[in-house]
């Protein structure tokens, strides 16, 4: 009996198709099948700044080399974030303004309000809480019995963290996971049935947070994100601009949730695929410090960020017109052999592990980068104390998206430390 081959399982060799304006890497199915690598490899080598004139997201430029990505990311005066930072445009009748999708000066004013929550001095205070929660979760896990790592560890842990940062009612924390998923979902992913449903759920999110916002206006909490928004000079009236409040809440939820979640899972996958590296780690758990940024580079949990040219400009020999959509493929820049030595290998003791574009560069650089690194470090420190092997025992299920690059399921079995 032969197993039926689903059409999406078999992808054409990216080198067998013409590298013309129909060459399209922004296909969610490619990412779901982890089949995007060859496409990017070819673009980097043959057409590093590439124009695709036809996709479900309209025409767009792909920027695939590390240096060109760095250039676009650091020239916010040429490449604007205004109006959206993912390849898909927002619906005109449902736009969510958020500071990541704004240019200076409004971007700077709003970012400044919330960034202290992830200031290193505040992170130090959080470390104990994070460790306690990690320990609590890991100690409940079954040994020698299959379970889904994504749900029980990656999602649960990042959701607990997010609830702490917002001081969100702890027992309702899975609502945060749901809103994060809904916010980035498309109709093919099986998360929502229709755009109407998506909006309905997001309005529920808005109502919940508006209530919390008003409550914290009256009774400020202790350094949580909602209190900061409710009292920050540039944001204290945001509750009267509901779409903007919703936009920024979604930004913080997705930023703190999807990304770290998928890096926690990605690390387990990477170590299973590279047993020699796992062995290195067992022999020397101090390598966790350099392994953490390597996991983030390897996973690149957000595959791209989008900009729009505001003037006619040139990038690596290509003429980009004002108004053109420009997509920086972080997932590709992080595998650019010209900039990162042995970029296509997972090496937990690299010399310069933090040299990667997963957090972006310039004024939109990830605000929570140190928090993400800290969460991953603590997770791995506690895993290594307890388990000899987190064994992947089935095929990982990947997310159907060219933006959120991650996992929906990862079956594992734990082996106790000898």
């Amino acid at each position, binding site marked *: 009996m032969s197993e039926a081959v689903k059409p999406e399982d078999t992808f054409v060799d990216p080198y067998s198709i013409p590298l013309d304006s129909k060459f399209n890497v922004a296909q969610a199915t490619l990412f779901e099948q982890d089949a995007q690598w060859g496409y990017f490899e070819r673009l980097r080598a043959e057409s590093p700044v590439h124009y695709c004139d036809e996709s479900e997201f309209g025409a767009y430029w792909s920027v695939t080399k590390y240096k060109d990505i*760095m250039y676009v*990311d*650091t020239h916010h005066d040429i490449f604007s974030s205004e109006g959206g930072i993912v390849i898909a445009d927002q619906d005109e009748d449902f736009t969510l303004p958020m500071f990541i999708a704004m240019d*200076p000066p409004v971007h*700077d004013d709003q*970012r*400044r309000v919330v*960034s*202290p929550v992830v*200031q*290193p*001095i505040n992170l130090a205070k959080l470390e104990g809480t994070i460790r306690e929660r990690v320990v609590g979760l890991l100690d409940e896990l079954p040994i020698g019995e299959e379970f889904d790592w994504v749900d029980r560890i990656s999602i649960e842990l990042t959701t607990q963290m997010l609830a702490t940062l917002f001081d969100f009612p702890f027992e309702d924390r899975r609502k945060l996971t749901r809103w994060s998923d809904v916010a980035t979902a498309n109709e093919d992913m099986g998360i929502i049935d229709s755009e109407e449903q998506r909006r309905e759920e997001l309005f529920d999110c808005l109502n919940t947070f508006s209530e919390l916002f008003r409550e914290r206006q009256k009774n400020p909490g202790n350094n949580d994100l909602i209190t900061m928004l409710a009292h920050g000079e540039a944001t204290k009236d945001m509750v009267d601009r509901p779409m903007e409040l919703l936009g920024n809440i979604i930004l913080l939820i997705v930023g703190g949730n999807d990304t770290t979640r998928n890096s926690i899972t990605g690390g387990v996958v990477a170590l299973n695929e590279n047993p020699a590296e796992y062995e290195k780690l067992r022999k020397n758990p101090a390598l966790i410090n350099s392994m953490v940024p390597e996991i983030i580079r390897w996973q690149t949990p957000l595959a791209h960020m989008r900009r729009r040219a505001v003037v006619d400009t040139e990038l690596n020999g290509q003429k980009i017109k004002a108004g053109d959509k420009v997509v920086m493929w972080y997932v590709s820049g992080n595998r650019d052999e010209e900039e990162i030595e042995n970029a296509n290998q997972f090496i937990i003791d690299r010399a*310069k592990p*933090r*040299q990667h574009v997963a*957090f972006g*560069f*310039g*004024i939109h*650089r990830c605000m929570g*980068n*140190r928090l993400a690194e800290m969460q991953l470090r603590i997770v791995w420190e506690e895993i290594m104390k307890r388990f000899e092997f987190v064994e992947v025992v089935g095929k990982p299920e990947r997310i159907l998206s060219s933006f959120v690059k991650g996992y929906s399921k990862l079956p594992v079995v734990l082996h106790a430390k000898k």
Partner: protein
Amino acid sequence: MPKITYIQFDGTESSVDAAVGTTVMNNALDNLIPGIDADCGGECSCATCHVLIDENWMTKVGQPSEAEESMLDLNPDRASNSRLSCQINVSEEMDGLIVNLPEFQY
């Protein structure tokens, strides 16, 4: 060669002979002085080489560019003598420069 002294947050001092034309960041990295992360490698785009210049040396090191200004501005710990060390090129007249390192990089 101009001498630069880096002072850690805990007070530890290290002095290095810096090469003219290289950056204050590079001299710290090359001499394995802790406290500077330099994630982007010196492109003025991550702000993890943040230093605090000794007040007496502020005029000698010059003014931050607009790009540096926009990166510094994102740092809640920014002070009046904050600079990104990748944006300071060492010159002969910087002999004796004193650079304080912050407790954390972002």
